[in-house]
């Protein structure tokens, strides 16, 4: 990609920091180095992911048989609310952009850091403060919110649980997200290395750039909406509550004006990572580079215009429902462009099925099912039947966990050697991804059948005819727990005992593979001059690569 970009610095960013203190906790939590902030995010995000998984496991355990088994209905309501809030706001939204975006965006465009390093650190601090708010509600009188992560009116106004704390958490986390987006947009515009035109940027950067725009433009809407609920709860102002002359549908509009684009904040960065991994492990330039790049922008734009498909049975006007249903189908087009281009990239490529590639294969399969079931829900007639059933839960988990969650692990396995300078055991990693795939289908596929047969979502009890499918799903949940333990355990072991990673273990050609593993403090000894296309594998001829 570039001439003379191999940095020869001896010290990695672990040995050299931006703070006065060279070691210890403070050298991390006050560091403005984008790589350290990326790792801070990785630690926090993984912690909350584990919390979310435990809550999910407990929910599935409750549903192993009809009737109360381990918790009562009220506790179950709090479980799914907290599971949703933690997984959405603390894991999936910041997951890929804040961890891998922070770490790799500056490196992939040939910059020393992001445009606003201090703002970057502030966004991590806001994330932590938001997380503290979300968790504080657990220990205060009233207990955590039981509204579901959507906080629908009028229940969220009337419940005696600590909804305001959870709302405040979402509000603060929104600011963290906005600052990250703003930083990425500015960095992409201002910090690209000489020669790095927009169309020489890796597709990961295109995806992060599009995501940045969604974060900046959509997130303020949810901030205001959350504040309005707090005002309504505290002062009794009638904004959304019909008893006070408010409009509950207006709340749903405002909530989904953010929360649907938020789905694209979650999935777009994952799509960027997929493009990177497929190109590297197929040893081919991405098929239809411009189409994939523009489809990121198209998804970001059209993602704004489809929100009311969540409201088809909420009392929305029929005209609006038809318009939104139509618009929903349009978003499927750029998503399909990406999937077809990824598959075409692999065609006649020299495929090396390493662990990150296998995660991506799992993603394409699971995400395609998630995407296509989305069309079933986006279609008006079928949505009336399936709305608020387990079909929606299945669809959502296929898209979010099968999509973003899977790619979070793909990215972790792809960039782990670069981030930590260690190699993991590939055999165990492959067992992990295989087991994950089986567990995923066992856990979530029965949900489509349950929903189709009429099992409503968010119920802690069910009719006896749903028992078998719920039982299979719970077995899948435990299998998933084992799979995730293998995957995370393998990486933690590698951190301690892994072999030293070379600079370019996979034969990648984007800029991060031209610098040492782990990278030095300012990434490059001198800013590279970019002369190659992003996925020009002829560069490998002059590079050392491979794990041996």
């Amino acid at each position, binding site marked *: 990609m570039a001439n003379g970009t191999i940095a020869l610095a001896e010290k990695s960013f672990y040995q050299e920091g931006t703070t006065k203190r060279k070691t210890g906790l403070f050298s991390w939590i006050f560091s403005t180095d984008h790589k350290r902030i990326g790792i801070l995010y990785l630690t926090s995000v993984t912690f909350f992911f584990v919390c979310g998984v435990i809550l999910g496991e407990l929910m599935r355990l409750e549903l192993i048989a009809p009737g109360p088994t381990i918790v009562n209905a009220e506790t179950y309501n709090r479980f799914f609310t907290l599971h949703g809030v933690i997984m959405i706001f603390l894991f999936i939204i910041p997951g890929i952009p804040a961890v891998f975006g922070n770490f790799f965006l500056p490196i992939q465009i040939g910059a020393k850091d992001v445009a606003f390093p201090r703002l970057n650190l502030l966004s991590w601090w806001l994330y932590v403060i938001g997380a503290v708010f979300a968790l504080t509600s657990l220990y205060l009188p009233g207990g955590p919110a039981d509204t579901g992560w959507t906080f629908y009116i009028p229940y969220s106004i009337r419940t005696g649980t600590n909804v305001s704390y959870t709302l405040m958490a979402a509000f603060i986390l929104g600011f963290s997200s906005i600052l990250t987006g703003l930083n990425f947009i500015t960095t992409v*515009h*201002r*910090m*690209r*290395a*000489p*020669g*790095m*035109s*927009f169309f020489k940027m890796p597709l990961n950067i295109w995806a992060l750039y599009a995501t940045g725009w969604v974060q900046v*433009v959509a997130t303020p809407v949810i901030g205001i909406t959350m504040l309005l609920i707090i005002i309504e709860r505290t002062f009794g102002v009638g904004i959304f509550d019909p008893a006070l002359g408010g409009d509950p*549908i207006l709340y749903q*509009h405002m909530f989904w*004006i953010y929360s649907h684009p938020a789905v694209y904040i979650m999935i777009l960065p994952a799509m960027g990572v997929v493009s990177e991994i497929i190109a590297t492990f197929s040893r081919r330039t991405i098929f239809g580079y411009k189409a994939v790049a523009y489809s990121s922008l198209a998804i970001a*734009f059209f993602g*704004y*215009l489809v929100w*009311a498909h969540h409201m088809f049975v909420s*009392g*929305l*006007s*029929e*005209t*609006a429902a038809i*318009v*939104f249903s139509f618009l929903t189908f349009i978003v499927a087009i750029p998503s399909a462009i990406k999937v077809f281009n990824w598959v075409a990239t692999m065609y006649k490529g020299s495929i090396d099925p390493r662990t990150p590639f296998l995660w991506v294969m799992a993603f394409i399969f699971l995400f395609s099912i998630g995407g296509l079931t989305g069309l079933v829900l986006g279609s008006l007639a079928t949505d009336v039947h399936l709305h608020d059933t387990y079909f929606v839960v299945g669809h959502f988990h296929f898209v979010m966990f099968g999509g973003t969650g899977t790619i979070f692990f793909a990215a972790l396995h792809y960039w782990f050697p670069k981030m930590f300078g260690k190699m993991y055991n590939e055999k165990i990693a492959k067992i992990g991804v295989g087991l994950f795939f089986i567990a995923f289908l066992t856990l979530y596929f029965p949900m489509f059948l349950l929903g189709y047969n009429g099992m409503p979502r968010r119920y802690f009890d069910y009719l006896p005819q749903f028992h078998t499918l719920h039982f299979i799903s719970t077995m899948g949940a435990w299998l998933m727990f084992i799979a995730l333990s293998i995957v995370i355990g393998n990486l933690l072991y590698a951190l301690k005992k892994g072999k030293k990673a070379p600079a370019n273990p996979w034969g990648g050609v984007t800029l991060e593979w031209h610098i040492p593993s782990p990278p030095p403090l300012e990434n490059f000894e001198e*800013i590279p001059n970019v002369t190659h296309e992003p996925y020009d594998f002829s560069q490998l001829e002059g590079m050392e690569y491979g794990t041996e």
Partner: protein
Amino acid sequence: MSNYNNEEKKNHVIDYGTYIFVWLGLLALTSLTVTVAGIHLGNYTLIVGLLIALTKASLVIAIFMHIKVEDPIFKVFIGIVLLTLLAIFILTFIDYSFR
């Protein structure tokens, strides 16, 4: 293509006179908003109020935020954001108008 070394390019100066003139204009428009609120215009009160607010916001963006003299790319971005906002308004009112 890179923007790395072109900071020196940006040296657009807006003189103080313009700032003061625009500031006075904003104050005048604020007085107008207050005055309009006192006049009984029925349903038009809201529209007039929003139009005045729009004018004020445009002045702030163009002059105080330097967008008037910035690169076209910034104008394009603001245009896209405003277009998105407009689309959100229109789509929301498709619901409210046809209920």
